[in-house]
């Protein structure tokens, strides 16, 4: 049964025997065991790769909130990754290595940027909205390039990961992996609660038929804006995690093709579903990884694959699994 918008199927009451649920269960189990695998085989690259997967999945979850459930196709979401990352990097450079300072700031600044961008962009719709969010992300990109003190175009290496004073040592790869995993799961849960709450129904209704929503008395703009801010904040957190993961920030984190990547991850896994973003991210990043090992020109396969997905897979991969009941 498709989870998207189907009132009889609340993600909190998923039927556990359908193929999609099986896939998710297996995926979660595998993800949970990656560090064990890495410890046994000594393959630390696996942890590195999958940590990145977890972090990008978090970003994809945040994008799915506005795009999949809210119908707000934001082409500038990578900006929040960058903002979160730069918050960590800039604070570190200025002597604030504490995660207790960096991470709230990352989330806060990302939320603020989302507030401004949202307030301006949400007045538009359709392709205008797509383009204006794209443009704002490019603005952020150029601002980052202009920040000479923090590396400008070359980026900035962050020598110390966020400090949490003995609570957790982020330099421990395994610990950091599980931290990201837990944060991801908590976020998925949070988003699933949000989308079924009163607030979430307003968001979903606005996606479905905004004119109707206004006609029954909802001031849709303010709800969409709040949703946009929540998504930005969550992605800012992902950015903070990313900066820690790579020990590096650069304007390219925000380049518009990265926003494109995020959109692909969300659509690939099936928009508007709790685990769709995770499925999509895993698929996309693994595909990228595999392709780059198999061929020197991964884009030759990835590109047309994306095109085919756009043409044939309306519901993303999840749609495949469910036999595309809803077209």
């Amino acid at each position, binding site marked *: 049964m498709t989870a998207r918008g189907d*009132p009889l199927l609340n993600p909190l009451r998923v039927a556990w025997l359908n193929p999609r649920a099986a896939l998710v269960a297996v995926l979660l189990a595998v993800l949970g065991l990656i560090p064990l695998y890495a410890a046994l085989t000594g393959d630390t690259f696996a942890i590195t790769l999958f940590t990145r997967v977890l972090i990008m999945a978090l970003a994809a979850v945040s994008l799915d909130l506005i795009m999949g459930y809210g119908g707000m196709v934001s082409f500038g979401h990578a900006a929040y990754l960058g903002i979160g990352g730069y918050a960590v990097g800039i604070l570190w450079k200025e002597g604030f290595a504490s995660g207790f300072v960096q991470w709230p700031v990352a989330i806060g600044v990302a939320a603020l940027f989302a507030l401004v961008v949202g307030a301006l962009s949400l007045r538009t719709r359709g392709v205008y909205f797509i383009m204006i969010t794209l443009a704002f992300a490019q603005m952020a990109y150029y601002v980052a390039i202009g920040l000479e003190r923090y590396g400008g175009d070359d980026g900035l290496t962050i020598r110390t990961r966020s400090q949490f004073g003995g609570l957790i040592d982020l330099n421990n790869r395994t610990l950091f992996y599980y931290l990201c995993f837990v944060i991801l799961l908590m976020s998925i849960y949070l988003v699933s609660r*949000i989308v079924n709450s009163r607030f979430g129904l*307003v968001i979903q*209704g606005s996606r479905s038929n905004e004119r109707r*929503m206004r006609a029954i008395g909802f001031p849709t703009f303010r709800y969409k804006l709040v949703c946009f801010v929540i998504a930005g904040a969550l992605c800012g957190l992902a950015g903070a995690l990313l900066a820690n993961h790579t020990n590096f920030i650069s304007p390219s984190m925000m380049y518009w093709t990265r926003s494109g990547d995020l959109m692909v991850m969300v659509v690939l896994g099936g928009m508007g579903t709790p685990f769709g973003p995770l499925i999509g991210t895993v698929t996309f990043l693994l595909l990228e990884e595999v392709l780059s090992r198999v061929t020197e020109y991964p884009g030759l396969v990835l590109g047309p694959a994306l095109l085919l997905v756009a043409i044939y897979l309306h519901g993303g991969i999840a749609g495949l699994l469910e036999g595309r009941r809803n077209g």
Partner: protein
Amino acid sequence: MADALLQIGGLTKRFGGVVAADAITLDIPGGEFHAVIGPNGAGKTTLVGLLAGEIAPQGGTIRFDGRDIARLAVFRRCRLGLARSFQITSLFREFSALDNVALAVQAHAGHSFRFWSDARREAALREPAQAALARVGLAARAGVRVDRLSHGEHRELEIAMALATGPRLLLLDEPMAGMGPEESARMVDMLRALKGGITILLIEHDMETVFALADRITVLVYGRVIASGDPAAIRADAAVREAYLGENEGSAQ
């Protein structure tokens, strides 16, 4: 009329060279069942748009319960108690009938900045929604997805949603559009049941329905009011006959 719930005064709207609403003046007292009829192109759709707030007038006033609403946003008018149904069905297609109506209830049940509890389990939203569905005869179809309902059921759902907002005035835009005779008859019965309790402004095409239900009728032609009064007066009105000559034989007899 001093106590009219809805007072429209000299309402005007032009689209380029076309005058879609030409100084429309109309008063609707509380509890009245008022119908606005007119041939195609008469400006009925424009009037609905003006009253609902989707179109901005170029001149004239609209007072609802004494308050000037001509510049109020759509959602605010609904909050004041002016609910509308759409001529071309406008629902939340991927959701169930109950979900649709529950949203309408939710819009008037406090703010919706609640992020945690499952709104589909809120009795305060589901029960009134179920009641509204029952009122229009859709109780048994509450759990069905809207895109699986029939056209007639869509029209009924339109009204249920408008009702669920707890309105003081129901603006119904051709509620029976596209309905067969049997379904239309059911809808007429339903509307008759609503009569008297709530003020209704019915925009309609079909003379029979209008004469069966309305307390008063206003006739619109090319954006102007050419006649307004009780059914008998309208029936006898020469200008009305002329406007409808050839349009609708038999029903004006």
